[in-house]
């Protein structure tokens, strides 16, 4: 039995395949954060005054805040003055076509499986590629514009569509929302802006691929997606980073707005560098993601597969404001080696007949610690609102941990909240059974883990589901002797 345990321990060892570094000259500012740095970032992006003012307000608020301490993750204090807040690969200031993008950058994305060349772009997925602090390319722009869909780097949207950005920026996650949201609001560099006009079903998946490359550099991107009345969009987000010995900070903000009858489906495969087997290095991922179902019958659904980061702190939430609106959260979070995750969701029911579903699958291996933290709030006006939550944990080996922290608040007597939770172990008897049928130990564990995650994979866009499966098997791969 001890040999079985040793084998499971080996499973917790993982190989990170996106750990390479791109050698490219960067235009980076000195480490540290101050009002001057905020001004510098804003001027580098040639921003209008209103945005600089907004950033400064956020910064001034941020300095009054303390880091949150309520989460179930442990890490040494972060020196916010040691991080670099802006780094961009050096290239021509304004690119007219992809031919002008540095080949080293194109190659980087190619290696990551995200070709950006016109001839090779992914079929039916428009990609915005964000490298450190800037967006380097966005594919399919013209095709999308024909449908009235705006999909571009945030920094460009600020200039091209200031009225839209001004209207919605911070409208779901105000800069004062929390410590990391305030930090992001002050220093955010780039990200994606998507706008789907009234009645338009976005003709393809929109996707942003985030890559942190430079050393000691934080990535603070901001994504804003607005779906007008009756619009539909499916958005995918992917992330990777090189292997570095020191921790790197990632504090993003994502805001979604769905108006009447609109639907936004947001899927993430998060594969930031998780650190090595001893817990050295890895990304600190402190992210605020929130969607507002402003309109009646609107729907927002978050699907996330979290395999990366040394620390994950993330609660994609939905504010169900419009009557009959629907919020969904499907999550697979893997913590192997020394990874820690405190992740979950918030469903705030305000409108009548609002419905939310939470399916959370936590997988812990090695000495990984996985916490689900979820809040379901039924406000006074949420007549006949419904929530169903299911939180399952799977343990691989016996040194890891799973924790569940559900918070439920009900202020309307007609609202109904259901919560189910389970914890199970990858059983030696299961592995033995599958091996007796001819599967290798590795295939057996993969089969058990994939089965455990099935409900979440089922709602991922197909190509993403395949990637997620592969990623999970890599995450849990070991040199099984």
């Amino acid at each position: 039995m001890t040999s079985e345990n040793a084998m499971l321990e080996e499973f917790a060892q993982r190989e990170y395949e996106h750990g390479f570094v791109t050698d490219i000259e960067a235009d980076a500012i000195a480490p540290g954060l101050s009002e001057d740095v905020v001004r510098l970032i804003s001027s580098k992006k040639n921003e209008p005054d209103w945005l600089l003012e907004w950033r400064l307000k956020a910064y001034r608020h941020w300095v009054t805040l303390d880091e949150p301490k309520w989460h179930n993750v442990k890490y040494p204090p972060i020196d916010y003055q040691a991080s670099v807040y802006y780094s961009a690969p050096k290239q021509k200031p304004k690119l007219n076509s992809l031919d002008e993008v540095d080949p080293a950058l194109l190659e980087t994305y190619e290696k990551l499986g995200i070709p950006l060349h016109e001839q090779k772009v992914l079929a039916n997925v428009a990609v915005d590629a964000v490298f450190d602090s800037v967006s380097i390319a966005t594919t399919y722009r013209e095709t999308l514009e024909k449908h009235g869909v705006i999909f571009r780097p945030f920094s460009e949207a600020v200039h091209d569509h200031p009225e839209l950005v001004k209207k919605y920026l911070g409208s779901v996650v105000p800069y004062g929302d929390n410590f990391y949201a305030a930090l992001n609001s002050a220093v955010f560099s780039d990200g994606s802006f998507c706008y789907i006009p009234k009645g338009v079903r976005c003709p393809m998946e929109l996707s942003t691929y985030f890559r942190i490359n430079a050393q000691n550099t934080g990535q603070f991107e901001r994504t804003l997606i607005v779906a007008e009345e009756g619009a539909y969009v499916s958005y995918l987000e992917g992330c990777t980073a090189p292997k570095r010995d020191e921790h790197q900070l990632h504090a993003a903000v994502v805001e979604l707005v769905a108006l009447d009858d609109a639907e936004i489906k947001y899927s993430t495969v998060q594969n930031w560098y998780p650190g090595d087997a001893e817990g050295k290095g890895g990304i600190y991922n402190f992210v605020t993601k929130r969607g507002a179902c402003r309109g009646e019958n609107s729907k927002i659904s978050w699907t996330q597969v979290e395999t990366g980061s040394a620390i994950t702190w993330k609660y994609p939430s939905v504010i169900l404001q419009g009557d009959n609106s629907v919020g969904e959260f499907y999550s697979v979070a893997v913590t192997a080696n020394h990874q820690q995750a405190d992740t979950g969701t918030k469903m705030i029911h305000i409108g009548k007949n609002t419905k939310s579903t939470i399916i959370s699958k936590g997988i812990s291996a090695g000495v990984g610690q996985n916490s689900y933290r979820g809040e379901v709030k039924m406000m006074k006006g949420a007549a006949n609102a419904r929530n169903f939550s299911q939180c399952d944990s799977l343990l691989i080996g016996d040194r890891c941990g799973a924790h569940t922290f559900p918070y439920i608040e009900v202020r309307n007597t007609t609202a109904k909240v259901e919560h189910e939770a389970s914890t199970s172990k990858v059983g030696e008897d299961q592995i033995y059974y599958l091996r007796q049928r001819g599967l290798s130990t590795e295939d057996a564990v993969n089969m058990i883990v994939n089965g455990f995650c099935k409900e979440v994979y089922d709602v991922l866009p197909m190509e993403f589901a395949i990637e997620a499966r592969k990623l999970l098997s890599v995450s849990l791969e070991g040199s099984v002797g």
Partner: protein
Amino acid sequence: MLEIKNLHARTTDTEILRGINLKVAAGEVHAIMGPNGSGKSTLAHVIAGRDDYEVTEGEILYNGKDLLDMEIEERAAEGVFLAYQYPVEISGVSNKYFLRTAMNSIRKHHDQPPIKRTEFLELLKENLSRLGMDKGMMDRSVNEGFSGGEKKRNEILQMAMLQPKLAVLDETDSGLDIDALKIVADGVNALRSPERATIVVTHYQRLLDYIVPDKVHVLAGGKIVRSGDKALALELEDKGYAFLQELAAT
């Protein structure tokens, strides 16, 4: 096909098998009977390779190869199949996908390409109808929420699909009503052939009414205390196991 010589096996605290000698030739069906705790199931699992047991002495030759030196999955790929007394549940994995993965794992071992989808489905359909199983069960998670009888039938289905050379049935009859018992026995009999061998581990004689063994062995105290033909099973039923304890003690 199978030759077990002076096999001793133990868990961390107890010796369970104390010198088993057994020869099973291709084409034969052997029944292993014995009271609870006699080591029947242990023998089945040692053949399959479960690592809860430590083999301290003796050897097992399988088609001339040292079976004990092979990994669990290697034994499976070489044609050793164990029908479990307590089949394991795998949540979220459909029976169909599981069966196909198992078949392809074994094919891969023999450098064969994966089975074609249509071929697989055809084979599955055939076996399902033979075992009186509902097609809907194939889309359900492996053994999850299955009744005791459904689980046992599912084991026989896997056996029929994987076409093992040496099938070991561990108390497959326990918990089955007479109709299910007949179906399971038919499934086993359908697989009887000159190239295959079967070991039926059972506590009761009644399964042997339907799967007629060539040889019957009685296990007690970790040793085979008597061997004979079908008549031995009937004698056991008549006299009970009690008298064997004395035999084992000597």
